[in-house]
């Protein structure tokens, strides 16, 4: 650990210190105003921070949507551009789309107090010997109910819904906070020695039930929280790589690199809260993958601690032909093989110029045709996303009251132009949002190329603002689910990847299937069933579905929700879509793994697991 600190020091990243035991203070120095920063106790009793993060919803406690006394929607807090703004049309859209009403509230029934003070949480099953040994090696840990509950879930609908109702299932018995790679090695050794189940925990943004504790697990379950392993250990400007601890959170990583003039360019929508280790463990994908690549393109070297020992490659060569790439056993392993502790990843100089854009198409078909052509010509901007008509309308509903960046007067004009002059039907048109990055001249050139292609498919440039707002909304959209849940509306998103020729078919069929299933399962109001194409590839695209419905009158809404999502996934598979493009499998999608990988494929993965972790120390039971 001392070496890494030293190494980091030479890069000028870490403040001058050679004592890693003073880690906590140091952390604060490194990221003084990190919005995710937890409040540390000075002792080893580290308490995470419900004051800053919601315990039963998405994101920061201070940021949330609500309907104010006048019945207008409002986004609280100061963190986002939308913060503090009034959204005048959201109410009508909300009530109209879901048949919901502000009169019918379904607030979270339970406050945190209940959970922690009224024994809603089972007392921990502690492995005393393990705890003793932990103490002796000086690794901080906690068995406070609050800490345990916080790390017992990701952000699947059923997980959040249960919390809102005060229902807590099996939670970890203990949380440990390793400081560095060596700490992890020690913890894993102890876990093996005392037969303890370990579940790595990064940012907790999983949407695949990956963090859920298997209820059938009888051993003591220890959540291994990587949040303290959050330093950039070195930056290599010659090779444009950085060596980073895996617990670092996306926004911190970007900010720290930015300070040095670099970026990774890896921006999943969850980057405010998800961790580097989590990305590696789930094969994450970032919005700007067209320039920077997905996580598998970004990593150069990975270090992982397994029950068998540490796995890593011997050099930093950019590509190797040394048999199957062992990185690919690690990436996507979802915490079943070990803990990713350090990652060397590619970095890029920060782009000199960024420009948003948007294009309106007369219909979704034309939009998809355009994206396909852009992919064919391999000229996709950093990001290009196509929303269907429902999402376009939704986007409109999120327009804030007058404000400089939102130039609603012009927008109004534009809408007029689109709907009246060009004969676009407001119930069919759809919009693509674009983000260009790079050298200014090239960006402008690139922009022209893309708009020219769009024009061939009837696309009209619809301005930077629309584009920018589109991307900003991706960060606040997760907050909207909490608002819905206050008014009997539940929902979720899920994704897939699919060959180009099936994009339209899969979109239509899955959306329709959702509507059908809702009806058949007694949902009283038509659901919101919408999609967008979020990534383009040479051979296909990533499609994202949003689905939400009003659950008034249903006795078990979560069950209904799960059945519908299940049906939707079957539909996806029947239409040639993949089980997952980037969310991963976790426990939510396990049942389809065998048909996805073939028997032999499953056998291969199993034998790796059996070799690496014969006693199932990493017992979260994801994937297999």
């Amino acid at each position, binding site marked *: 650990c001392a070496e890494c600190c030293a190494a980091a020091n030479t890069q000028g990243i870490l403040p001058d210190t050679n004592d890693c035991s003073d880690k906590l203070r140091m952390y604060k120095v490194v990221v003084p105003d990190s919005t995710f920063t937890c409040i540390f106790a000075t002792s080893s009793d580290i308490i995470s921070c419900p004051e800053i993060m919601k315990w039963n919803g998405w994101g920061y406690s201070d940021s949330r949507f609500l309907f104010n006394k006048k019945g207008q929607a409002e986004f609280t807090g100061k963190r986002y551009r939308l913060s503090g703004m009034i959204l005048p049309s959201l109410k009508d859209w909300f009530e109209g789309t879901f048949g919901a009403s502000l009169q019918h509230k379904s607030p979270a029934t339970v406050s945190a107090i209940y959970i922690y003070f009224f024994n809603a949480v089972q007392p921990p099953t502690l492995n005393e010997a393990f705890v003793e040994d932990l103490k002796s090696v000086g690794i901080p840990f906690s068995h406070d109910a609050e800490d345990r509950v916080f790390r017992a879930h990701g952000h699947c609908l059923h997980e959040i819904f249960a919390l809102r109702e005060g229902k807590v299932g099996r939670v970890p018995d203990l949380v440990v906070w390793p400081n560095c790679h060596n700490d992890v090695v020690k913890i894993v050794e102890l876990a093996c020695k005392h037969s303890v189940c370990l579940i790595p925990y990064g940012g907790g943004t999983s949407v695949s039930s990956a963090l859920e504790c298997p209820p059938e697990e009888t051993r003591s379950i220890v959540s291994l929280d990587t949040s303290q392993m959050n330093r950039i250990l070195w930056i290599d400007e010659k090779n444009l790589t950085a060596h980073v601890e895996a617990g670092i959170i996306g926004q911190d990583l970007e900010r720290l690199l930015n300070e040095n003039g670099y970026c990774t360019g890896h921006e999943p929508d969850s980057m405010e809260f998800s961790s580097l280790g989590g990305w590696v463990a789930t094969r994450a994908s970032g919005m700007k993958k067209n320039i920077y690549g997905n996580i598998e393109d970004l990593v150069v070297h990975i270090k992982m601690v397994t029950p068998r020992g540490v796995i890593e490659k011997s050099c930093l060569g950019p590509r190797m032909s040394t048999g199957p790439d062992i990185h690919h056993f690690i990436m996507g392993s979802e915490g079943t093989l070990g803990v990713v502790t350090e990652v060397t990843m590619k970095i890029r100089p920060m782009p000199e110029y960024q420009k948003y854009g948007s294009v309106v198409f007369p219909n979704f078909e034309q939009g998809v045709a355009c994206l396909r052509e852009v992919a064919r010509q391999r000229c996709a901007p950093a990001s290009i996303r196509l929303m269907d008509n429902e999402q376009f309308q939704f986007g409109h509903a999120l327009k804030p009251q007058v404000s400089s960046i939102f130039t609603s007067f012009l927008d109004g004009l534009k809408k007029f132009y689109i709907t009246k002059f060009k004969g676009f039907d407001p119930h069919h048109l759809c919009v693509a949002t674009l983000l260009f990055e790079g050298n200014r001249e090239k960006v402008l050139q690139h922009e022209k190329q893309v708009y020219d292609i769009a024009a061939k498919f009837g696309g009209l440039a619809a301005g930077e603002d629309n584009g920018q707002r589109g991307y900003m909304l991706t960060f606040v959209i997760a907050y909207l689910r909490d608002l819905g849940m206050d008014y009997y509306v539940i929902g979720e998103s899920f994704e897939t990847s699919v060959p180009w*020729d099936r994009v339209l078919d899969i979109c239509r069929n899955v959306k329709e299937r959702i509507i059908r299933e809702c009806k058949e399962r007694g949902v009283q109001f038509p659901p919101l069933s919408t999609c967008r194409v979020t990534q383009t590839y040479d051979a296909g695209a990533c499609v994202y579905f949003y689905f939400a419905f009003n659950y008034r009158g249903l006795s078990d809404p979560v069950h209904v929700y799960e059945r519908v999502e299940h049906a939707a996934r079957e539909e996806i598979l*029947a239409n040639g879509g993949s089980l997952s493009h980037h969310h991963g499998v976790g426990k939510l999608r396990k049942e389809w793994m065998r*048909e996805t990988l073939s028997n032999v494929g499953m056998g291969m993965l199993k034998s790796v697991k059996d070799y690496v972790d014969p006693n199932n120390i990493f017992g979260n039971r994801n994937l297999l």
Partner: protein
Amino acid sequence: MAAKPPYSHRDPMLKKRDDFEDILEERRNSSDLRYALKCYTPVVYKGVTPNAASLLKTTVLQSDQLHYVVDQLSKETGVAADVIQEEASAILEEMAHRQQLSTVRFFAFTLSKAFKALFRSIHVNEEGIQRLQQAIQEHPVVLLPSHRSYMDFLLMSYILYTYDLVLPVIAAGMDFMGMKFVGEMLRMSGAFFIRRSFGGDKLYWTVFSEYVKTMLRNGMAPVEFFLEGTRSRTSKSLTPKLGLLNIVMDPFFKGEVFDVSLVPVSISYERILEETLYARELLGVPKPKESTSGLFKARKVLSEDYGSIHVYFGQPVSVRSLAQGKVNRCHFNLMPRHIPRRPSDETQCFVNDSAYSLVRAQEENMVLKPWVLLASLLLQNQSQGLLLDELTEQAVWLRGLSREYGAFLNWPDHMAPSEVVSSSLSLHRDLVKISGGRVQLALGGQAGPRQPCSSPITEEELMNQAVVVLSCTSYRNQALHVFLRPALLASAIHIATSAKKEEVYNSFSFLRNMLSNEFILCPGATLQDFEEACYLLGKTGALQMSQQEMQVTDSGQKTVNFLTAMLDPFLQGYQVVCRYLCEEATEALTEKQFIPAIRTFIVRLILAGSLRYYELLSSDLQKNALAALLRLGAIRKIKVADNVTLKVNRLMVNSLEDTLGGKLPTQKAVAARL
């Protein structure tokens, strides 16, 4: 044959059916011209592609599917791709419909006149129409009418026009193209034409299937075709053809549409226009080539009374729900969807099962007129005939039985049975004669008064009489599906060597297998059919069943006799075919010679007085028997030069004959097959 729970939950009597509405009534009370010119604004499929109709041909010609096959053919044959593409374009020209509203209006007008002249009423179930309208908006729709008459598809379009529904495009046989003017008129009313046989012609197949699929995918109009492939000359449903059904299901399998709705439609005619025409055809009087003048020679037809028509639009069947758990759509995940592929076994099996259940759905909703029952009774009493009172009494009994079995019987209950009987008889006066209070089939021919039941002396006389008998059987056949399963059981009990349930089941299974080219019997559903038959016979008290045995009750004798008599001609027919093959057929018998030869054989037997069923002269029965024997491997086809000869396994044919006649236990026949 585990005992399943009784069938109470699917008691055929509880089947709920819609009410009918006569659409001619309004025609009789208001202007046909105004009707033909009415404002016609049908609702369309919600996902309809704009300009689909005008782009149809281009879409087909530019489809990946066609390009792929054109390229492939070009590589195989060395013919330039654009030449083949031209050819495809010509095929499409020959095939495509050119529906236009003006022609439709013309038909609306002329058909109104014609229908009013021909028919008393055209009854349609309006709830079915409403369901159809709903279905049309939701998903691409395929209309699957039964096929008994040339009238069928004009009638269908007429009804849809009347109810302001989107007019269908109809797959029609090329035979119509012979009639130039009519052919073109039909084309303009929405028919498209397919060659009768294009077996290995890949290009033709591709153009054709792409054409149909494009129309479905675009959802511009319902596609209509006849599952049975051709008009049934016997009024029995025909074994479904799978080609088109495969094509219309394909877009669903490939995820190109969310779902496809299949709507079985049952069209029942009280009197079939082509009645005697069909009988002649079946007897081997060559089919008159369909020509315009031929159709119009039917002028005389216009002065006759053809009673009423019932058209029942069945419950739309979702291909998606049908396929649930039976077809794995992932099958198409690993290859581009435009590359032609044989359907998987699973898919083929599914399409086949679906086809059968759709034909059964058609059968179930066929309206039966009292005459159908009368014809059945008269055929069973050919020699003596029946006294009018007797006939009425029996008909009332049979009415009860058929209702118990779930028949969709249109018997006017408000009329006295005797009235019902006499009005039925009068509508079919060509087929019956009443003398001295005795009702009989009109077998006398034109040759003045003859002794009732006199055997024919000349072959010509025989044929004339057979025309009447076959016309009559075509009515009886309408009711066959109602009685089929119990009749198979009754016959099985009859030929089984003991009353052991096991034994009876074996016989049942044997008969069912033997006759599965003759009737609509879903492959693989033997047990289900057996249980259904047991249930029906048991429920009417005709059968007593213990754990081991099945016994016909005294009171059930009448039912069982009736049922056995119903199947008897078929069983006799198959035996005669077997006998012919064993006794008379030479090594050199070709497939082509089979029908004339067997006909001669049967004529001889009848004239000699050793065979009494004239209906064995029906080439339909003969062909079906041959097909069954081929299927069972008792005959093999051998290609010799240009001819296909039939190689007979005499031992096996012989044992099949004996088993059919109840002379050999079923076990043996089964053994002989091996």
